[in-house]
């Protein structure tokens, strides 16, 4: 009897589940919760540890920095800091904090908290530490009073301010109570938050979903009046087809990683908005300038002129823009350069000047296994090079294997397809990719070493006056293009799709390809 009772009840509940509506705007406790579908799991929410777009998206919602990037073109705006000054020699930076700033537990955000947070990252030497560790020592960050903090750099470093949006302030009182084994609170902060951001962490359900609850008392307020916004759930939806299905069915209100084809399909729906805008991310095919073949600049030029650049745009269904400089469009000081475009006459001319005037060689092209667009670009390159009697061997590799090969000039392939996203709009963030200090990193797989270029990069980053820096960066861009360490490709668009009731979406090219600023988003059915 009991068996039949349980069976009937189960059948009833299955029936209820079957008849449930496929989805609409979700409400919980009378408030709207937005479901954001993305493919990348959030490995942790500690602003002091290594980051990717998912981590950065979450930490930006949970924490505040002294300044914040916003807009297009991206600008550094005051946030926790209301204003700042720089000494004439560019060494001392002084920031005044907003006195009303509060952590989410009610504690005031003080200069001591800023000092603690910066020192924590520098001592951990993880995550964002690489941005400043060469120019800023932990002992040179000082609280002058409760709301004033001073940074003294070891040497002038013009891009300093442009990195600060990624340095978030933690509440020392909360972190210190959770320090174990001198870990600077790493273990605890991985799945807990101690910030002053617009959201608090409600649930960290690893591998499934991450819940951010809106803090209605956020010290800086919100750019909308609707108090019905309850929170945002970043839900993992790993397949693009599943993302599309989730958006169409209403199980997700916004999705971040649709393919160009998927975007086109959902964009035809009246209840869905799509956004496709150029990102700071560039795609290029890096050439190993220390390799057996590509060390010959004439061969590099020949390959660059043989490539059909329209392929870059075609494989993304038009959701890409060709680069017109070594710098992408949103980088400060970017100038238009006369870039190589397909010209077989020039390609043959350069090839004839190379060590292999008749071709007859085989180059290796490495791309990320499973990335169809990169495979298609390889096929286009293969076709182009055949006209020069050069064969192309296409090698798909997993990302860790690519990174491993890119770390060593002797192992790095002749050609490697790479997406690169700078974290700052300062031109140094891109120029440094062509400096020997980038060798060993995946975007340094060209292993370019050019004394003239090095000198210009090092000179420009020390100058505080933009009028002095700008012409140097114009020269740097020209020099990089002249040296042809890569087939300069395209700026891939950032593609998002969201229900029309999702309001407040603000695009900024500074964000990584699939990253969204959660702060201004809200729901208005």
């Amino acid at each position, binding site marked *: 009897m009991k068996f039949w009772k*349980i069976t009937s009840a189960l059948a009833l509940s299955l029936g*209820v589940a079957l008849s449930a509506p496929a989805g609409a705007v979700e409400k919980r406790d009378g408030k709207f919760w937005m479901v954001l579908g993305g493919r990348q799991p959030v490995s942790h929410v500690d602003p002091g540890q290594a980051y990717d777009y998912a981590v950065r998206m979450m930490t930006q919602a949970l924490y505040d920095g002294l300044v914040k990037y916003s807009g297009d073109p991206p600008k550094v705006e005051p946030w926790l800091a209301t204003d700042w000054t720089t000494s004439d020699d560019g060494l001392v930076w002084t920031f005044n904090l907003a006195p009303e700033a509060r952590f989410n537990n009610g504690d005031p955000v003080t200069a001591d908290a800023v000092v603690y947070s910066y020192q924590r990252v520098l001592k951990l030497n*993880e995550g964002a530490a690489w941005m400043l560790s060469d120019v800023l020592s932990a002992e040179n960050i000082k609280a002058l009073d409760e709301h004033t903090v001073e940074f003294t750099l070891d040497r002038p470093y013009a891009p300093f301010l442009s990195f600060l949006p990624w340095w978030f302030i933690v509440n020392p009182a909360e972190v210190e109570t959770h320090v174990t084994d001198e870990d600077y609170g790493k273990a605890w902060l991985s799945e807990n938050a101690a910030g002053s951001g617009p959201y608090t962490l409600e649930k960290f359900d*690893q*591998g499934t979903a991450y819940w951010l609850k809106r803090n209605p008392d956020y010290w800086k307020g919100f750019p909308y009046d609707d108090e019905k916004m309850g929170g945002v759930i970043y839900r993992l939806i790993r397949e693009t087809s*599943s993302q599309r299905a989730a958006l169409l*069915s209403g199980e997700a209100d916004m999705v971040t990683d649709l393919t160009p084809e998927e975007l086109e399909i959902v964009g035809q729906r009246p209840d869905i908005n799509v956004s496709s805008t150029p990102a700071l991310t560039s795609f290029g095919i890096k050439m190993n300038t220390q390799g057996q073949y590509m060390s010959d600049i004439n061969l590099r030029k020949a390959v660059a002129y043989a490539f059909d650049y329209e392929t870059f745009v075609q494989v993304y269904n038009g959701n890409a823009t060709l680069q017109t400089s070594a710098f992408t469009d949103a980088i400060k000081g970017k100038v238009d350069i006369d870039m190589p475009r397909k010209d077989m006459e020039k390609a043959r001319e350069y090839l004839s000047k190379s060590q292999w005037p008749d071709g007859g060689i085989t180059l290796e092209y490495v791309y990320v296994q499973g990335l169809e667009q990169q495979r298609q670009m390889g096929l286009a390159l293969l076709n182009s090079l055949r006209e020069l009697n050069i064969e192309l061997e296409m090698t798909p590799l997993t990302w*860790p294997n690519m990174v491993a090969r890119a*770390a060593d000039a002797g192992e790095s392939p002749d050609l490697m397809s790479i997406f690169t996203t700078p974290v700052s709009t300062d031109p140094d963030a891109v120029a440094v990719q062509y400096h020997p200090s980038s060798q060993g*990193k995946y975007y340094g797989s060209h292993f370019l070493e050019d004394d003239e270029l090095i000198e210009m990069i090092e000179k420009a980053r020390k100058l505080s006056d933009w009028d002095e820096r700008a012409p140097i960066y114009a020269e740097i861009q020209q020099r990089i293009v002249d040296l042809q360490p890569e087939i300069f490709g395209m700026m891939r668009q950032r593609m998002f799709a969201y229900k029309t009731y999702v309001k407040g979406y603000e695009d900024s090219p500074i964000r990584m390809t699939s990253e969204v600023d959660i702060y201004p988003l809200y729901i208005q059915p």
Partner: protein
Amino acid sequence: MQRLILKRLGLMVVMLLGLAVITFTVANIAPGDPARLAAGPDASPDMVEKIRVERGFDRALPVRFGLYLGQLAQGDLGTSVYTGRPVAQDIAVFLPATIELVLFSILIAVVLGVPFGVLAAVWQNHLPDHAIRFLSVSGVALPMFWLGLMLQWYLSLELGLFPLGGRLGTFDDVPTTITGMISIDALLVGDLATAGTALMHMVLPATALSFPALAAIIRVNRAEMLEVLGRDYVVNARAQGIGPFRIIAIYALKNAILPTLAMIGLRFGWMLGGTVLVESVFDFPGIGLYAAKAAISSDFEPIMAVTLILGAAFMLTNLLIDLMYALLDPRVRNQI
């Protein structure tokens, strides 16, 4: 029987050790620098080096293996370089999800596969046999991934009959963790609504996952039944006027089921390790996705732990099947 169990468990330890050696070697000679990946794309060389030293990647391979074995002996599966979380903590979350899915899939495969196999044998070369053989060939031929996508598209998106993915709805409360299997836990605490929702979430992924096993069970069971139905004792039973249902269900099936049982055991092991595609389509947060992410990230300790656990599960399942053989077949029992 006890001697057999002890002997097999002893062998299991040796095999697991062998598995650990192979996995450890493969994971470490494969290209890829886990320290660099953990440090992030922009990390400076000293940041990478710090992580390398912290995680012991700078030590000689035999030393690392020794340390790893010592760690395993204490029940410590290590820490994920990628998430910084203890691997055991992750596995405690993801493994029950996969076991739940696989059990449900096996249930579907057995409940449908055994009767279909019998039916196909009884109606050999007639319409039911042709239809069932078509189903079993489809099960072998259709890729799980594609089938999952089609089921999701039609039954979920078009007809709205099932949820798109996940283990529960976004806003559903998860019942108190007892086994980690949501449907079971919900039943144990008497939350029938949540149990129903969890089962609904499993229908599509379990169907996609069960298809190859269903096909295999049908084919094996059909072949065995055909052989058994032609044996003398069956002819004798028919001659004695015993009803066809009794002959098929009691006399024939009992003898034909043994190879099917072995097949179920093997499939269970394969399914545990082969759920990644289905988990990916349906966003079912199980061990397959966890292992795949770890493999992509060169995250060594989760890969090792998952391999060992799946290996142990595979061996245990086979031991259980052998014991069931002994219970069902007196000839096997007498040989032990």
